[in-house]
């Protein structure tokens, strides 16, 4: 079941976010979480024996059974935003490494 796989990926991502102390690993966990969510959203629109939602010369009229295109459009948006946040997070990680010489949040510490 793809939907359960999506949920399991999400849980793995949350576990990484809760326990890891390395900035890069936190960003990777966020990506895994996002991936699980995307798989789940796509699976909601799946129809058995449905064709991809594109009209071609073979699948040439709208009476056919298509897979739901709306979740796919939403996930397209989510992927691009995920790219933006990941790139920004990695830029922050590089800045942190330049300043402290480490990526571990415990070692960086802070004034509690």
């Amino acid at each position, binding site marked *: 079941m*793809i939907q359960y796989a999506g*949920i399991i990926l999400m849980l793995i991502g949350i576990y990484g976010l*809760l326990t890891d102390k390395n900035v890069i690993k936190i960003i990777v966990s966020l990506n895994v979480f996002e991936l699980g969510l995307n798989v789940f959203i796509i699976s909601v629109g799946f129809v058995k024996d449905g064709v991809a939602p594109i009209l071609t010369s073979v699948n*040439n*009229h709208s009476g056919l059974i298509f897979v*739901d295109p709306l979740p796919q459009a939403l996930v397209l948006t989510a992927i691009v935003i995920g790219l*933006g946040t990941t790139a920004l997070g990695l*830029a922050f990680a*590089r800045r942190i490494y330049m300043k402290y010489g480490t990526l571990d949040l415990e070692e960086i510490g802070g004034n509690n």
Partner: protein
Amino acid sequence: MKKIVAIALLVFIGALLFTGIYAIDGFPKYGEAKVADRVSEGYIMKNVTEANTDVVYGVSTNLETGSANYVTSIVVNYRSFDTLGEVTVLFVSSLGISLLLGGFSGKLRNRCKANFILRMGSKVVFPLIIMTGVYIFIHGHLSPGGGFPGGSMIASAILLLYLSDEKFRVNIENFKKTESTAGSLYVIIGLLGLVISNYFLSNFINTGTVGALLSAGIIPIIYVLVGLKVGSELTGVITDFLKEEVE
């Protein structure tokens, strides 16, 4: 200790999700979604307001959106405002990256020298990647793909040049100009729709025949603009990441 608490919490959330997900009224089992009962039915029939008539590839003309790819018709026509926001998010994140890393003047040195195959191969492959990227965003309304994958492909071609030649630098000013022009034109097209047919980003050009290259009204225009914008934006991001502090 912390890990055990985290695992216990996740097992709890997971059990709730696994048992509760199909108990929600109307949530379909995997593979049994009924598209005919959803909003998407209007998108597939290319008519969200009136009675349904069958859309036939290469025959039907003057529909709400003439795009053969339904996902594109949603992303760039029905939910185009959403895409404008998405492009803005990407722009803001690239702005943040250039604030964080753009101030350095040095260039990150490669650990090892690029070998002969990479140097020569990249010259052969570079134009092919650019051409594929442009093809993908021009045909966004007919085939899978569109502005975002096409733009990323163009940026990946630039990354290949960076990897193969240590002295290579793009003229980032021109990329910035392309990006801002494309972004402004997207908004201007939206405002034109507001003036001509009373809705922001409405499809005011004749949508033509489904499946023709010159069809779907403003969709190909917007997707080309998005492709150029994403390509130049990601090139800027790559360039910023390859900068280094010089002592």
